[in-house]
């Protein structure tokens, strides 16, 4: 009789111990980088760490990663002359591997001429209209997303390093305000999920910190590369809000602020996500 109870207690203890191990193992699995002082997170964790091992494997192998189809497409477009000036990206910038190294990691960046920050998509289109005298690419169009991914890919592995001081600070503050404002019928802010509840299991998925280091990212759901502002739109749609327009000032401010929330994370473009 007594033996039986001993056995039960032992089993219960073992179960508790095992549970503890599992929980901590799961957390230990999510590797992050220590955040700088005054940051909202203690540890900044890439969205990669929240995905299943199958999805991660797809990103880890450059051949399997379907995002590279876009990178390769854009590598050809880089060399192709377009517009009235008869120039290609290469005419001014040379080899992208050298000239674009680190560019994508520091976007969005302040533009003195426009007196506002610009992101990578806008920068590419500014080049097209002003330098190449070519038609700008539409947002969400394949060539623009491909080229954005291609340029950002040249910074792969480099830390996200947006500047938030100087004239851009206003935009940073605006982005922060948007991040913490509740929107839509569901009355949720970005913060509600990605700051307060990240790491928790919601519906069939883990909530991530909402980092942007992998964008444009190949979403398995869409079976194509998705630019950041489309993802923002999707989030706002999901909380049943009226989304801001892609490349609007609101999303630009938010892009800047969210990039800062992931400061120091390595760029993973083209990442693979759900």
């Amino acid at each position, binding site marked *: 009789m007594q033996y039986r109870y001993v056995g039960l207690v032992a089993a219960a203890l073992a179960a508790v111990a095992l549970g503890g191990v599992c929980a901590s193992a799961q957390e230990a699995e999510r590797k992050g980088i220590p955040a700088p002082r005054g940051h909202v997170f203690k540890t900044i964790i890439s969205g990669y760490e929240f995905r299943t091992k199958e999805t991660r494997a797809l990103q880890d192998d450059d*051949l*399997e990663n*379907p995002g*590279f*189809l876009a990178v*390769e*497409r854009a590598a050809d477009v880089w060399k192709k002359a377009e517009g009235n000036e008869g120039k290609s990206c290469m005419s001014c910038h040379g080899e992208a591997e050298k000239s674009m190294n680190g560019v994508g990691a520091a976007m969005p960046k302040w533009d003195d001429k426009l007196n506002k920050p610009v992101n990578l998509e806008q920068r590419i289109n500014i080049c097209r209209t002003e330098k190449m005298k070519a038609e700008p690419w539409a947002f969400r169009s394949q060539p623009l997303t491909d080229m954005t991914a291609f340029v950002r890919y040249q910074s792969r592995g480099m830390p996200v390093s947006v500047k938030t001081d100087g004239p851009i600070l206003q935009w940073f503050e605006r982005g922060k305000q948007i991040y913490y404002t509740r929107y839509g019928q569901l009355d949720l802010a970005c913060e509600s999920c990605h700051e307060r509840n990240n790491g928790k299991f919601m519906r069939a998925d883990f909530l991530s910190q909402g980092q942007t280091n992998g964008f444009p990212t190949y979403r398995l759901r869409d*079976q*194509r590369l998705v630019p950041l502002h489309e993802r923002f739109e999707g989030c706002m749609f999901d909380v049943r809000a009226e989304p801001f327009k892609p490349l609007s000032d609101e999303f630009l401010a938010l892009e800047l602020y969210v990039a800062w929330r992931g400061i120091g994370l390595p760029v993973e473009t083209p990442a693979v996500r759900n």
Partner: protein
Amino acid sequence: MAEKPRIKLPKEAAKGEIIQIKTLVSHVMESGQRKDAQGKPIPRKIINGFTCELNGKPVFACTLEPAISANPYIQFNARIEEAGTFKFAWTDDDGSVITAEEKIALKA
């Protein structure tokens, strides 16, 4: 969209060695089950077949079905008995064929 498929295989292999071949091709793989914004069905357009030959001899072939997602990734193994050229072919529903070639040498 005549894009180059992505293929990965070793440059050389020992006689009798089993090598792994990875292929990835860009394609929409439209299933034919979906409808557009106007409610009209989007016609099916998928890659329905894949073949791989070494020096004209079949190595691997498969049929692809509408449930396969965009940008199909196919991985398979082959035993290498001779040096030569791999020919890959993806057949589209519209009859067009995406082709690619890769050479393999025998280890001395």
